């Protein structure tokens, strides 16, 4: 390929595609892509496939700097927001772990599990339960985030002056990112990340506190029977057992726990936090990130959208002019001399055909009432006709041409030579005129004008149309050949 390609197809970064989409949204809402010759030229110069050219054009547009600034601003704000959310969740995790652990002695193991894992697991199950319907909420989610952003912007940037395109670019970008399924998965990822931060911080806090301080741990209950409590403990140990932590099958559940049992239960607690708190959220986070990535990779991929499709011929032209490679020669053509009017050399008339195929010529000849010399078709026949004309003594020469034919230089030269040879006045009859008329008035008039010019140049006296269909007797022939 002679075209330099900057990257193989499909490797446009998300930022490039977002910029493309922002341009598309603007241009689609304006109704049509504006005239941007500079950006188009740069896109064509950049080469590559259609998507790459679209991206190059979006970058070359004068407003792209403002748009990129808006995107960067949005990204920074989003990252900051996520950072804040994660920090607060982490703090919440630390607080939850330390307060539950430090509230009183002995510490209830069921309470610890409920506080540190229960809410987390419950909200995760709730999130899973609403997944089948959440796609319907996606547009509403995008709208909500946009409204929040607008308020936030108005509030945060009250002093500085945001530029209009950048402002709407950020909103458009939110619409793109949050309006479709990507918004749903991105939000999910943030929620899972927050709970993950909560669980990890709680886990760390527990590990540190349990390492440096002695806690009384107990399986406490007020309402449940000891058997039910033991049953609960067994169920809850299914997860920690996966990590190798020993549970109620070897450890005592009720009564005061000795130091060995306390240590084993502490390890069990940490394992429970990992299995029920950290791992599910981690898996959900990974799933959401993967789904969000997939959704994001679809942004700017559909090039059949009208905003893109209308640029196709501009950025991927299907032809290019190569200019004139062999210009009109300036050689002056010899001025044609007006052929002098000639007098009849005898009586009668001689007819010859121009532009007839052999079968048509026969039909014309049968309808013709005066002497028919033949059809001037091809160099050989022309020579014969010229010889015949040089010897003939006649009053008038009649050229019977097919009206639909285009008069050309070959015929013109022959007509001049024939009139010169015969030395008599000549007229032009346009036969099968009805076929020309069938092509419409405009075409008829144009062709008639051309034949008129042809006749004038060749030195003929007049042009007569002749309809050779059923109605078509030759209109204006009189005794001496031509009436008037």
């Amino acid at each position, binding site marked *: *390929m*002679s*075209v330099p390609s900057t990257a193989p197809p499909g490797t446009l970064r998300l930022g490039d595609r977002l910029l493309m989409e922002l341009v598309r*949204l603007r241009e689609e809402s304006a109704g*049509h892509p504006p005239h941007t010759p500079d950006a188009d030229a740069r896109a064509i110069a950049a080469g590559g496939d259609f998507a790459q050219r679209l991206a190059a054009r979006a970058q070359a547009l004068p407003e792209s700097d403002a748009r990129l600034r808006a995107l960067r601003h949005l990204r920074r704000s989003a990252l900051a927001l996520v950072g804040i959310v994660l920090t607060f969740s982490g703090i919440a995790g630390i607080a939850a772990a330390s307060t539950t652990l430090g509230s009183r002695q002995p510490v209830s193991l069921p309470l610890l599990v409920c506080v540190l894992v229960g809410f987390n697991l419950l909200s995760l199950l709730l999130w899973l339960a609403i997944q089948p*319907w959440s796609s*319907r*909420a996606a*547009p*509403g989610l*995008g*709208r909500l985030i*946009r409204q929040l952003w607008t308020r936030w912007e108005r509030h945060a940037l009250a002093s500085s002056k945001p530029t209009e395109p950048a402002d709407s670019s950020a909103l458009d970008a939110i*619409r*793109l990112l949050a*309006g479709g399924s990507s918004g749903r998965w991105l939000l999910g990822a943030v929620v899972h990340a927050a709970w993950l931060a909560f669980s990890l911080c709680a886990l760390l806090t527990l590990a540190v506190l349990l390492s440096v301080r002695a806690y009384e741990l107990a399986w406490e209950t007020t309402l449940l029977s000891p058997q039910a409590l033991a049953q609960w403990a067994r169920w809850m140990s299914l997860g920690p057992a996966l990590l190798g932590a020993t549970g109620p099958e070897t450890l005592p559940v009720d009564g005061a726990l000795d130091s060995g049992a306390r240590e084993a239960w502490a390890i069990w607690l940490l394992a429970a936090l990992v299995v029920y708190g950290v791992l599910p959220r981690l898996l959900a986070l990974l799933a959401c990130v993967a789904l969000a990535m997939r959704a994001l990779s*679809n942004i700017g991929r*559909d090039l*059949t*959208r*009208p905003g*893109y499709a*209308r640029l*196709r*011929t501009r950025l*991927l032209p*299907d*032809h*290019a*002019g*190569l*200019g*004139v*490679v*062999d210009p*009109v*020669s300036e*050689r002056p*053509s010899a001025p044609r001399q007006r052929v002098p009017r000639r007098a009849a050399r005898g009586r009668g008339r001689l007819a010859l055909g121009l*532009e007839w*195929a052999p079968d*048509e010529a026969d039909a014309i000849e049968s309808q013709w009432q005066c002497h028919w010399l033949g059809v001037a*078709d*091809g*160099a050989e*026949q022309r020579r014969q006709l010229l010889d015949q004309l040089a010897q003939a003594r006649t009053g008038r020469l009649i050229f019977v041409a097919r009206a*639909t*034919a*285009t*008069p*050309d*230089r*070959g015929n013109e*030269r022959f007509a001049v030579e024939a009139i010169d040879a015969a030395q008599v006045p000549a007229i032009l009859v346009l036969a099968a005129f009805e*076929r020309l008329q*069938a092509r419409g008035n405009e*075409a008829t008039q*144009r*062709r008639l004008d*051309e034949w008129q010019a042809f006749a004038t140049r060749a030195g003929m006296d007049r042009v007569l149309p002749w309809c050779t269909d059923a109605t078509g007797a030759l209109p204006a022939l009189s005794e001496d050949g031509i009436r008037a």
Partner: protein
Amino acid sequence: MNRSDALSLAVVGHTNTGKTSLLRTLTRDSRFGEVSDRAATTRDVQGAALLANGKALVALYDTPGLEDASALSDFLDTVPGPHADPVARIEAFLAGDHDQGRFEQEAKVLRQLLRSEAALYVIDAREPVLAKHRDELRVLAECGRPLLPVLNFTASVDADPEQWRSQLARMGLHVIASFDTVLFDFEAEHEIFEKLGVLLESRRSQLERLSASRDEDRNALILAASRSVAELLVNVAGLRLSVPSGGDEPAARARLQERVRAAEQTCVDTLLGLFRFELSAYEPPQLPLQQGRWQLDPFDPEAMRILGVRTGSAAAAGGMAGLTVDAFTGGLSLGAAALIGAGLGAVWGASGPLGREISDRLRGHHWLVIEAGTLAVLAGRQTQLLRALLRRGHAAQEQLRTGSAAGWPSPTVARQVLRARAHPEWSALNNAAEEALPDAVLRPLALAIAQALDGGAEAASEPVGIQ
């Protein structure tokens, strides 16, 4: 851009056979060269490259018409040179003064032919085969380049392509393409490149690439156009306007209709914008529009009558009940609620003014939606416009009369659009700022519309009840 490895083709032929028109049609550029219905309009040699993905694959050169081949043939016999090598004789002729400039125009043609790899010999199929054409072909054949005769104006009643084919075969030209520069047919373009590939074995892959690229462009165009029609239909189908009971219903109805008209005009503008190149082509397609607009309003009963859409039932009057369920499900199950609403609305609508009255009083408001007949009108005429833009006008006329799908381009389209009536959340017209239209809805509908453009064999088999 590298043009040196482009296949160079001279476009030659008798005068006024449509050489420049052929170039204009192939390049879709109405400004290329100069065209008129008379001899010797083109006097210089001008080129245009056909590109695929930015790369020039074929360079076409428009030449002046041959006007006096018989005399030229005679003159060439007098040019000194070895009789066994006609090309050398042509070269000797070109090096001379072309009989004091008499054959200047013919010399340009032959010179360009010698510079090119092959030639397209354009023929006006309405003309009879004459001796001068044989002389032309003889002179051109002496240049030693492959010739592909291209029969132009084949759609004309005067055309006699069979006679040309048999005569060309007698002159040893058996690979012949036909092409009508007035009634453009995309397939005919393919044929030219395909047959060139037969003549020029080594260039075949290049020509196939060009064909493929043009196919791709065209398919992208059709898909983008179908997509904007699909967007219009889904948007209008889901359009909903809430009217409080006792509110100004005629005003709301007018507002709703105005939105539909604006959406339709946007779609028309998009289609015209997409086909900008086609419309600037030589002999642009004839459109059923006047100054870029439909003559009849989509709500005009005449528009429905023309497209064969039946009207007049109670449900088609435009008002349809919805449910307040929407309000307390917080938009989460909007689609399901609206579906129930639409169904109940139809029942209420059918039960007459009393039923509507009761339902209004119960719910405090009702919804205005677009009736199926108007959707059929929109679908029918946008498809008609699209067919005209693609120059499939004749097929379209016929199908409108025979299809039982009353206005709809095909039953599949009808089914999908009518389904979209239950999904106001898909309609961008309900909340203008939202990019809500899901691709999963749009793509199949766009494909169904694109398929319906091809004539839609399914149209006759499956009746769709539209009341």
